[in-house]
Each structure stands twice: as C-alpha cells, then as structure tokens.
C-alpha cells in the first residue's frame, strides 16, 4: 500500500493478445490512475473486452506486460491481485449460476479467498447494491435483469476490491435500468474510492462514467481522449469522429431535418 497512491495501480504496456494465428490485440499501452474511471470504447472485434480479459487472466498475454501496483503479473495471478481486482461481466443472465441461490453464489468468493464473517459480508454487499436480505434465497430466474446485474456487482464487491473491470455492465439492460445501474456504479466509486476500467460500445455511457477514454479499433488503440474532448467533439482521428457521429443516432440522409 506504500506506493499505491503515487503509482498507477494498473498499467498496460505493449499488450498483445493472440489466439492461434489471430491477433486480437496489438501493442496497446495505457495506465489506469488511482481512483479514476478509465474507458475503453470500440465496436465488436475491436479488442476492448479482450484487453479486460487479459488483465483479469482470462485471455493470454502474448506480448508486453500488465503491471499491478508496479509489478508485472504472472500467468497465475497472485492472491493479492485476485482480491484487489474483480470483474463484472456483460450478461447478467449468463454470469450467475442458474441453479444456485444468490446466497450460495455470494458465498463462493468468500470461501475461495478464505475470509471470515460470511453472512455479515454478504448482507453488507447486497445492501450496498440497493437490494435487501430477502433476495438472498432467490434463484437468478426469480430476479429481473437489473437485479441480476446488481447481484453480479455485489459479488465483485464482497472481497473489497480496489479495481473493478467492468465489461459492458449495462448493455444487456433496458435504458431505464441502465440509468439505475450506472448511478449505482457512480455511488460505489465515490463511497468506496474504487478504480474502474470500463468497457463499452456506447460513447454516451462511457462519457458519463469516465474521465479518460481510449478508442479502440481492430485490436489497436486509435486515440486517447479526455472526457471533455469527447463531449465537445474535439477528436483528431476520423474513426473517433465517425463513432461520435454514429452515437448521435439516425439522420435521414437526403431530407435531413434539424431538430427543433
């Protein structure tokens, strides 16, 4: 913890990820600063989720290094890493075990890391995500999509992590529920001083959540933007401009009407 404040808790240098012949990520470098929310945006196949998975140890690091608190991570992540870095997946329908109660799923990380006060931790985690203990004995199919994603977030929070790797945490949810989950993530970050690495295809969502944003395309980093640059449209690459335009929605080509 001595150098945790000055040094980037997570830093990626020259990262490459290869699956047999296919290079999913090529030479990507960035630092995630303590307490910031760093966004990775891009379309499908851009490698944004693969970067997240490589950091979490779910995809191979073929080139370059991933440093956690200044130390390169090893193929088998250390106990400290596994406790400090937690991942939330896109699909809350797929990331929870369909035949386990919420209580059982939340017990798992506690058991794996050998922590005590099981029930206290579970109750605390479930209340932090805006649910209550009555949800503990339900199965995933008895929850709505938003409630499931809250459970997935609660599971990540149980071990009191410092960094959350968020892989499209709201793209499977309705827009109204998305707003609730995004607000929850903002609240948690403030109250618990968390650091986020936030992956999304939605520029507006990343803009609302992140201070710095890396635009990805075909496995390569295209442009690093600050949130302000993105919001005011001050981007220098064509691709970033194209993404920005697309996020404004559909405009009939010829008979283009201006709103209002």
């Amino acid at each position: 913890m001595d150098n945790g404040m000055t040094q980037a808790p997570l830093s990626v240098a020259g990262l490459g990820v290869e699956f047999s012949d296919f290079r999913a990520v090529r030479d990507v470098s960035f630092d995630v600063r303590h307490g910031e929310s760093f966004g990775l945006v891009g379309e499908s196949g851009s490698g944004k989720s693969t970067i997240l998975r490589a950091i979490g140890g779910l995809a191979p690091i073929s080139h370059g290094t991933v440093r956690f608190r200044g130390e390169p991570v090893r193929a088998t992540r250390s106990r400290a890493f596994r406790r400090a870095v937690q991942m939330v997946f896109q699909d809350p329908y797929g990331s929870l075990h369909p035949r386990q109660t919420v209580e059982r799923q939340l017990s798992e990380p506690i058991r794996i890391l050998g922590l005590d006060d099981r029930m206290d931790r579970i109750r605390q985690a479930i209340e932090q995500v805006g649910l209550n203990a009555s949800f503990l004995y339900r199965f995933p199919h008895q929850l709505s999509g938003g409630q499931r994603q809250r459970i997935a977030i609660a599971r990540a929070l149980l071990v009191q992590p410092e960094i959350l790797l968020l892989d499209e945490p709201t793209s499977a949810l309705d827009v109204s529920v998305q707003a609730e989950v995004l607000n929850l993530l903002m609240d948690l970050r403030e109250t618990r001083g968390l650091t986020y690495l936030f992956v999304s295809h939605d520029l507006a969502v990343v803009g609302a959540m992140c201070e710095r944003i890396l635009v990805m395309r075909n496995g390569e980093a295209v442009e690093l933007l600050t949130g302000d640059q993105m919001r005011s449209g001050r981007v220098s690459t064509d691709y970033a401009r194209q993404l920005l335009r697309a996020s404004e929605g559909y405009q009939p080509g010829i008979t283009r009407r201006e709103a209002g």
Partner: protein
Amino acid sequence: MQDHLLDIRNLRVTFATPAGPNEALRGVSFAMGREKIGIVGESGSGKSLTGKSILGLTPGRASVTADRLMFDGQDMLTMPPRQLRQIRGRRIGLVMQDPKYCLNPVKTVGRQIATAAIAGRGMTMAAARAETVRVLRAVQISDPERVMRAYPHEVSGGMAQRIMLAMMVVCEPDLLIADEPTSALDVTVQLEVLALLDQLITARGMGLIFISHDLRLVSQFCDRVIVMYAGRIVESLAANQLHNAQHPYTRGLMNCLPAIDHKPGQRLPVLKREASWITE
C-alpha cells in the same frame, strides 16, 4: 375503414400460468397505413408480442382475442391457417433482432433467399437465383455471387442482417415488422442498416412497424411512435412531437438516456414507476 393497411382494436393476449392468467397484452389498438410506426417500451412491455400476434406467431398456450385484427381488409383472426400462411412472409415480413439465430446455419445464404422467393412468389429455381442476386444488390452487398455461396457463420453481423432484409424484401411484402432489427449490431453498422431499411421502405411504399427499446432512435427513424407499458399503449404521438410527450413514462424513458455531453459523475435521472400507469 379499407384505408388502413392494418387495423387493430382491443388486442389481448393472455397466458395461463399456475398462478392464474397473465395478461401480457391488455387492449392494444392502433391503425396504420403505409407509414413507419415505432413501438417502444422496456422488456416485458408487450412490444414484441404485439408484432408476433399480428402474424399469429404467439405460442399455443397463449389465448389471443381482439375486437378487430384486419390486414388490408382481411380478418386475420378468423382466417383459416392456410390463408394465413399466404400472408405471412409474402404480404407481411418479419425481421428479428439476431440475424444469426434466424438464418439456417447449414444452408447457404443464396439457397435460403431463393427458397423464400420460390415459396413466396412461386418462382422457378432459375428465376429465384436471378432474383436473389438482385435483392442482395438492393441491400448493398457488392459481391452477391460470393455471399450467396457463403454459410451464415461466414458473414458478419451487419451482413447477416442485410441478408435477412433481402430475404424479406424478395417476397415484396406490403408490411414489414422489424423487431429490434439493429440492436445486435455495432453503432456504425446500425446506421447503414437503418439507411438501407429506410430506402427499401420508401422505394417500395411499404408499411413498417419498427419495434425497439431505443426511443431516441425510433423517434429519428419513424413517422409515429407508440409507447407501451405493461401490455398497454400509454401514449401515441408523431415522432417530431416527442418533446411534447405528456405521459411521465415517455418522458422518463427519454431522460434516462445519457447524452453525449453528459458530465461525468453526474447522476442520471431514474424512471420512477407509478402503479397508476398500469390502469390509467
């Protein structure tokens, strides 16, 4: 009365469950001509079910009733199944959200489109193949010969959705029901597919029912927007009047989307649901 391409009055769909009947659609009424109508709502609001009930594609355990369900002057509810099959695909087309699940994985793209042309328009194989090339060009696929020989897993998501559109268009329907046709696609591809859909609809003078959860997109794309909540239509208005929406649900749906210039860390407005919306 004959003016309407589609005229629906008091459409109700009920599922029998062990806990009692579940009313999924509770009196949906609207009429449309050859225009672009958007149906918006959250998951479970009944928007997809509305589209499916028009085509009689509800599961067998659902009971469907309506005071009127007329398509081009024909009563779809009392129609014998044989006659209904003449309408499905041929006069009313359906495009679903995930093209990869809708295409047959073990048949080539060309064969699937040709089959649709043969079944829908009684073409010969040779004519159907020629027509397939033509519609693939119409959906802006530059090398139709190659794509025809491809299997669905060999094409991208955007391409697969174009193929689905081509398959619908080959039968030259009068009404197209598009259920989240672009939700599974990347943003930039999404716009291309929408532009294409717009162009096909306009060129052929078709009616379109565009089902989506994305209110902003629907309001930009359609002439009229129908907003659904818990199996009912809560508001129906012209797309360019959306900023004058009266119902708190419509307003809530619009507000909870983050805008591109949203300040980081600023909390998003959250939709507060009220029990009265279900009955009012």
